[in-house]
């Protein structure tokens, strides 16, 4: 009977607090991840919205091409009408 009481005391004083402590640690860690994940999701959505302007790169690409063509034509004309530098 004495051993039974000792077992009960150990169960209530040692085992139960240890179990509660460990479970609370797991729960706190899991709850700490939740806001971080929400911030990651928000940032990813914002990044996705920022990339909505990517199709404009096609316009930029075309305009750069046209600009370089104009520069090439202009340079070609200058090459014809302007004398080359004298050789040293």
């Amino acid at each position, binding site marked *: *009977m004495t051993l*039974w*009481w000792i*077992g*009960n005391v150990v*169960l*209530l004083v040692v*085992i*139960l607090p240890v*179990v*509660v402590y460990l*479970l*609370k640690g*797991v*729960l706190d860690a*899991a*709850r700490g*991840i*939740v806001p971080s*994940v*929400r911030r*990651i*999701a928000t940032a*990813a*959505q914002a*990044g*996705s919205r920022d*990339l*909505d302007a*990517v199709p404009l*790169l*096609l316009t*930029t*690409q075309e305009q*750069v*091409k046209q*600009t*370089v063509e104009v*520069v*090439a034509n202009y*340079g070609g004309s*200058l*090459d014809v*009408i*302007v*004398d*080359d*530098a*004298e050789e*040293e």
Partner: protein
Amino acid sequence: MPAAGVVLIVAVVLIVLALVYFLVSTIVALRQITSGLDEAIGAVGEIVEKSAPVEPVVKDINRNLDAGVDLLEGLLVKKAGLEDSMGLVEGLYPGSAAAGLRNFPDSREIHPPRISEVYTKGTLTLARLGREAPIAAASPSGSVLRNVEGGSLDARMLYPEGRQQRPPGLPRSPVIGTGAPVVYPPSEQRGGTTPDDGEIREKGQWAGTAAEGIVPAELGGSDAPRETLAEDPELGSEALGETTGSEAPATDTGIDRAGGDEADATSDGGPDVPEGGEPDLKDAGAPPRQVDT
């Protein structure tokens, strides 16, 4: 049941309750994490999808820009020489000559001449254009480009100043009319252009006559002295008119060249009539009666 058994049961129940509470709470938190990760993964997938074509497009843009830089650098060095090029670059963007030209590694070692202190951009451009440029026209030998004083003076004379000091008397601006500094005698030009030698050879003797004037001044042409002409004030140059000296059409629409060299006012003139339209004969005269013929 003994008291120790009851206490044991209570202790076990407490442990089980603690397990249930904390594990359920953990499950709820993990589900929230799963939901958040699903949203994040979806957004990351969009990012990956949207950014996929960026690389080839940016590479193409960079390739075109590289070609433009190569072209401009090559043209600059070809036309101005490497040393003067670095002087021009330094003049336009002070300090940038130290970086040199990308395709000319030797340009980093060149001490750039201080071109911008002697030549302005416009002057240098005009000078590079050749003999037609004002500076080069004044000094076709080309030495003025290397003449600091001459180049600077000519450069300054190209730009207006608040009080015109140089040169002291500028030529008058072109004037059209009787007050023009250059007035062509009417016998030399009265309608159309004065035919040159080539046109005379092409058109024949009559064109040569036109070049000398239809009515020479000594025979009483319109440019003869006023005292030799009859008193007719209507025959002044205002009444006789004069050519514009320009190829620009006198009307907004210009000359209708649809008929080519064979254009005729009777066939090519007048308003555009729709196909199949009946002519307007309300103003046409009535034919003679049979008895009258």
